[in-house]
């Protein structure tokens, strides 16, 4: 949209409003206005960047790429409220865990994430998971403990959950695919 408006500024004979309208209408057609939504290639590149961060065990870098969830504290299967929080208070957290994710409070994420990345060895595979939304991927990593892989879900170029300990890397990609990064033979 902003790129459209910048183009409009150059095209002085058109009003900004009319160009904006034309961009909106023509966004599904071939026009001179760029579609600013990330492309599949963009998401793939963003995912590869996240993979590199994880392989480098860069938890601080990865934290900046986290998509936090906002949920109500105090309900079953969610986050217990802390002292001073009334049930139903909105709190921020991040799904982490073993076979099933649970919500880790935002202030506990750095320590937990650093611990989970501490023994990551290298990427094992990355598969497309379109049901996670645009740019949906699951990246699976080998760890120094070969029986235990690390799985990371990604959507729209951001990390949406992290799991460890639910099986060996090959088990974590069983039945999955197609792959952005294929598992080793």
């Amino acid at each position: 949209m902003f790129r459209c408006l910048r183009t409009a500024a150059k095209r002085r004979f058109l009003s900004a409003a009319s160009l904006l309208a034309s961009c909106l209408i023509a966004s599904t057609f071939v026009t001179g206005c760029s579609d600013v939504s990330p492309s599949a290639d963009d998401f793939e590149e963003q995912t590869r960047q996240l993979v590199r961060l994880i392989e480098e065990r860069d938890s601080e870098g990865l934290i900046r790429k986290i998509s936090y969830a906002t949920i109500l504290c105090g309900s079953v299967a969610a986050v217990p409220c802390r002292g001073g929080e009334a049930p139903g208070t909105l709190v921020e957290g991040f799904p982490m865990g073993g076979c099933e994710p649970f919500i880790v409070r935002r202030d506990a994420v750095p320590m937990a994430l650093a611990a989970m990345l501490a023994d990551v060895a290298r990427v094992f595979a990355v598969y497309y998971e379109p049901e996670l939304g645009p740019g949906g991927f699951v990246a699976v990593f080998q760890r120094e403990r070969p029986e235990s892989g690390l799985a990371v879900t990604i959507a729209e170029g951001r990390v949406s959950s992290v799991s460890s300990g639910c099986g060996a890397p090959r088990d974590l990609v069983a039945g999955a695919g197609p792959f952005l990064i294929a598992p080793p033979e």
Partner: protein
Amino acid sequence: MKSSRTRRIMVIVLGTAAALTAIGLVVANSTHTFINGTGGSHSSFSHGLNPAHMWVTVSGDHSGGVASGGIYHDGCTDLSGGATIDHCGPTVGGDYAIDIKGASSSWPGTPLLVTIDWAGFASGGTEIPSQVGSMDIYVQVVTQANYRNPPRPACYYTTLKITMAYWVIGDPNRIHSATLGYVTFAHGHQWTRTPGQYIYANASRPINGGSGTVYYVSNFQLGNVYPYPDTGSSPVCSFGAHSHVELLTSHSWGAMYEWRSDEGPDWFQDYDVHGPTGLGNFAAFSPGSTMSTSRIIGFLGGNTTSRAVWDNPHYSGY
């Protein structure tokens, strides 16, 4: 989808849990400690469900190692670095749950086998079970549902109600029954029973310490563990083949083995049971345990309504 009775029990148990704002160390013996809740050891409601203070064991050979577990296991998993997580939460309102990895990652997955056996009774009940005749364990499917809407393939669960029928000393003409609790198995498929159906006893053995016979459910195949990851929902339902086993007990609030530490209740210790009478020791989990030898997952029943955990003796405050 839960029955009203299940919901009612869950509400009461969770209400009790909410009231437990502090945990006291009340029992110590030569080898372990045992933590009990502060919400009282008994209630008329739970007593009505289990007046004989019966216990049963829950186990099964659905193989694989323990992925996580403990009181409200979700949130208590191994984060591989000792990270302290300040909460755990149940999935279906139970007292105690663990995740067990599925041993197979190919269709149709590891058979999900269930064993429900009698484990004795705790003292103090108003009904003293006769151990001369027979004791029968009945298991009924009460719920089958999916954690997600729309349903996800790895998100199906089924809940069993566990009932015991028995005779009471001094009352030979009337059979008694006790509802000991509920067991939920999740991330399964190809269920062999539907809601309302029973799983009848398929094995028998002499009653421990008695002269009668207990009829119990042994390695009944309830379904299969869904063999693949199911990452197509947010939050993710299952990162890999595993079974989630959750216990909701009528009396004790989470009677199980575990290694409860500063990092949360995430390991199990090979303790013997101090609730059931006259039955000797049960081999239970220890770190790295697998389910391949019918290890006991946990217990239903007992004589308290409070948290009952055999504690890690190395952490005096826990």
